[in-house]
């Protein structure tokens, strides 16, 4: 294990759109402090950052890639057939693959970033979570194409269609757990750094879209807290939550705010450093059994 002691350290990056770039700030701080990560888990947009970190790319490269990966034009191509299926479901055949936007732009970007990379080729073991659309179960993707896994994990309901891997139709990982700490637990991690993001509440509800977003935020945030609470209590060692606080509003595609987001991530990671140094630096026997 590459950590300061023999504890297995996992980084879990939860759902949070472009805010997940805060993980790069954490990566900066950990690199400076010599804290190595033994395992990375990602969910939804967090899966992209998890994969970039697991691939061993340095922060500057990842930052640059992010600006190109996650831009507004990812959702620019409307799927007109999908609209017809909504309006005339019997005539055009509405089914479980519904999505309002075509995924060609996002697939192109993901292939530019990750090419044919597989989980097996990652420098740090990587796991990505999605959700089985048929029954809501969390699906842990740990082998095969990284691009396919990320595409499945970011299948934002209504926007991108569910994505088929094997015989399962998968939707966004946040639907089963916005911060999948359990994957790191199952993989034997001792110290789990869990970077999560609460969904913003809508300040003004003046459209059906905002109404739906608010409902989604309520459910997602409650799911985040209930799942985290369970994992926090049941883990044998430490789960260290890092929930960055953003003073500025960060929207879905605010990639121009990435430097700010990284800075917030750095600050949030630095707040945990005094304890992490003590925990990983020496006498952590007590912590493991606590």
């Amino acid at each position: 294990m590459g950590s300061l002691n023999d504890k297995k350290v996992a980084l879990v990056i939860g759902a949070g759109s472009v805010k997940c770039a805060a993980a790069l700030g954490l990566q900066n701080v950990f690199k400076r402090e010599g804290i190595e990560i033994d395992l990375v888990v990602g969910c939804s947009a967090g899966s992209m950052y998890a994969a970039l970190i697991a691939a061993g790319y340095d922060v500057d490269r990842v930052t640059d890639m992010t600006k190109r990966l996650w831009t507004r034009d990812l959702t620019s191509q409307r799927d007109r057939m999908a609209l017809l299926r909504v309006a005339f479901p019997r005539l055009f055949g509405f089914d479980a693959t519904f999505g309002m936007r075509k995924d060609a732009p996002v697939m192109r970007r993901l292939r530019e970033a990750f090419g044919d990379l597989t989980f097996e080729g990652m420098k740090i073991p990587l796991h990505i979570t999605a959700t089985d659309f048929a029954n809501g179960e969390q699906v842990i993707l740990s082998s095969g194409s990284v691009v396919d896994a990320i595409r499945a994990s970011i299948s934002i309901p209504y926007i991108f269609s569910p994505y088929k891997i094997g015989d399962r139709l998968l939707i966004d990982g946040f639907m089963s757990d916005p911060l999948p700490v359990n994957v790191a637990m199952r993989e034997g991690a001792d110290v789990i750094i869990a970077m999560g993001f609460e969904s913003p509440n809508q300040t003004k509800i003046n459209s059906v879209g905002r109404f739906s977003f608010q409902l989604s935020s309520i459910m997602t945030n409650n799911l985040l807290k209930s799942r985290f609470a369970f994992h926090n209590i049941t883990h044998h060692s430490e789960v260290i939550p890092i929930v960055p606080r953003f003073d500025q509003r960060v929207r879905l595609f605010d990639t121009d705010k990435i430097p700010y987001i990284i800075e917030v991530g750095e600050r949030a990671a630095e707040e945990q450093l005094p304890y992490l140094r003590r925990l990983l630096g020496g006498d952590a026997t007590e912590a493991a059994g606590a």
Partner: protein
Amino acid sequence: MEVTTKDMGTVTVVTIVGSVDGLTAGALQTALEGQIQGGKARLVADFAAVDYASSAGLRTLLAAMKEARRAGGDFRLAAVRPDVLRVLELSGFTSILKLYPGTDEAVASYGP
């Protein structure tokens, strides 16, 4: 981390200074269990000087809460700092523990 206790009527105020984490959990657990086993199950933990809390530390609080309630008392928190409160909220503790702005309010909450 330092732990001191003070009896205020039928309530015992446990003042904790420092970090409630995996490295201090053992000492904190011993201190809290000692109070409960000594018949002092109406506890208030003064968190005004607790500057950090981790999952392993929170599990100690959970154990104390269960023990105190089993013994007919309770384990209540006072003066929790915003950063620590955030961890408590995320971990679900604020939905199962009673929290008060200060120790006086927490002690008074037990009634006469």
